């Protein structure tokens, strides 16, 4: 089992695997996007209080979920690069950061667009919104560290420490609506209770979440391939790949 793990931790094998998976992930994600958008924007009924405005959850909720999921992936990869010194950990953390930052920004922007008509304000400094904004700054801090430090190994280590430390923020974002009184509403989907959303509205949400999730994996793999090629650019296998007409 350990030899197996080692094989995929090798950049060359991961590159091959990623190259094979990417079109499938994008393909399935695209199909799910079409199904989710049609069922969410056309088939699902309007909400009894918010009317049509509630449909923004089909973008807002998956982005907010991925903003946290991407951070856990990034922090896990960073921890692996710190502890086991696997190059793949560094590559994955660097590949995930901008994608996670984009989803965080998307969650903040869609939330703000919804907040103005529904709450009556674009932004409030409640615990949920503030901790999500902090998450965006953690991503941007990681990205800034990566481009500020010239030495690749030093940049990887500094970024990894920041990513691992910042993971403390993830449970704070998740539980902020329970621990403190916030303007943001509580969780609609929880593990233990029945979801407090009608099934006809829930199904498009689940389809959209799956579409976003696969899109995330596909994009991270594409970015990881670029990182790998750049990292291994002096090696024979990359030279062979390029002379064989890649991409």
């Amino acid at each position: 089992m350990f030899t197996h793990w080692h094989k995929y931790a090798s950049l060359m094998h991961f590159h091959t695997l990623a190259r094979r998976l990417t079109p499938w992930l994008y393909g399935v994600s695209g199909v799910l996007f079409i199904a989710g958008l049609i069922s969410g924007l056309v088939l699902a009924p309007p909400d009894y209080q918010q009317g049509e405005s509630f449909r923004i959850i089909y973008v807002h909720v998956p982005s907010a979920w991925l903003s946290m999921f991407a951070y856990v992936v990034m922090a896990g990869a960073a921890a692996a690069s710190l502890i086991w010194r696997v190059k793949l950990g560094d590559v994955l953390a660097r590949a995930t950061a901008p994608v996670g930052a984009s989803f965080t920004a998307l969650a903040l922007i869609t939330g703000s667009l919804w907040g103005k008509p529904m709450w009556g304000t674009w932004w409030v400094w409640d615990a949920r919104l503030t901790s999500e904004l902090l998450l965006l700054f953690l991503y941007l801090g990681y990205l800034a560290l990566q481009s500020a430090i010239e030495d690749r190994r030093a940049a990887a280590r500094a970024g990894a420490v920041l990513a691992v430390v910042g993971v403390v923020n993830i449970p704070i974002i998740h539980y902020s609506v329970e621990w403190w009184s916030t303007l943001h509403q509580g969780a609609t989907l929880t593990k233990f209770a029945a979801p407090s959303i009608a099934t006809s509205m829930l199904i498009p949400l689940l389809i959209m979440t799956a579409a976003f999730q696969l899109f995330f994996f596909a994009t991270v793999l594409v970015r990881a391939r670029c990182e790998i090629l750049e990292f291994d650019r002096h090696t024979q296998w990359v030279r062979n790949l390029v002379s064989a007409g890649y991409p």
Partner: protein
Amino acid sequence: MTPRRKRIVTVILLLLGMGGATALILKAFNQNLMYFYSPSDIHEGKAPSARSFRIGGLVLKGSLKRNPQSLAVTFVLSDLKQETTVRYAGILPDLFREGQGIVANGKLGADGVFEAAEVLAKHDEKYMPPEVAASLKANLNANATPTGKTP
């Protein structure tokens, strides 16, 4: 101890340290992180009297009074235990209605009436089609059972 094990321990200690420090900070600032006070907090004297703060609760059914000449309104906020009267002059958000959770920013007057400078609607986590909401309401009225659910 191998270097690898040392690094594992370092990462775990780093996380525990950060987690502990964050927990202590959040505990110390617990009151500041509360976005709003409830009518019960005000009743118990927990809310500040000199500076402005936010109050949150449900708009009591039948309590909304509009001034026909201006935008001034008064309504009663309830957390199902205590009640506070709120006075406000301005445009109310779309989701403002009786029975709905809201958050108001302002100051507590000497007469115990909250003078709001801003009113925000607080949406709950429930999503349903209008027909389901209507039939739920019909069932509720038929049984006349209070739900007792806070937003």
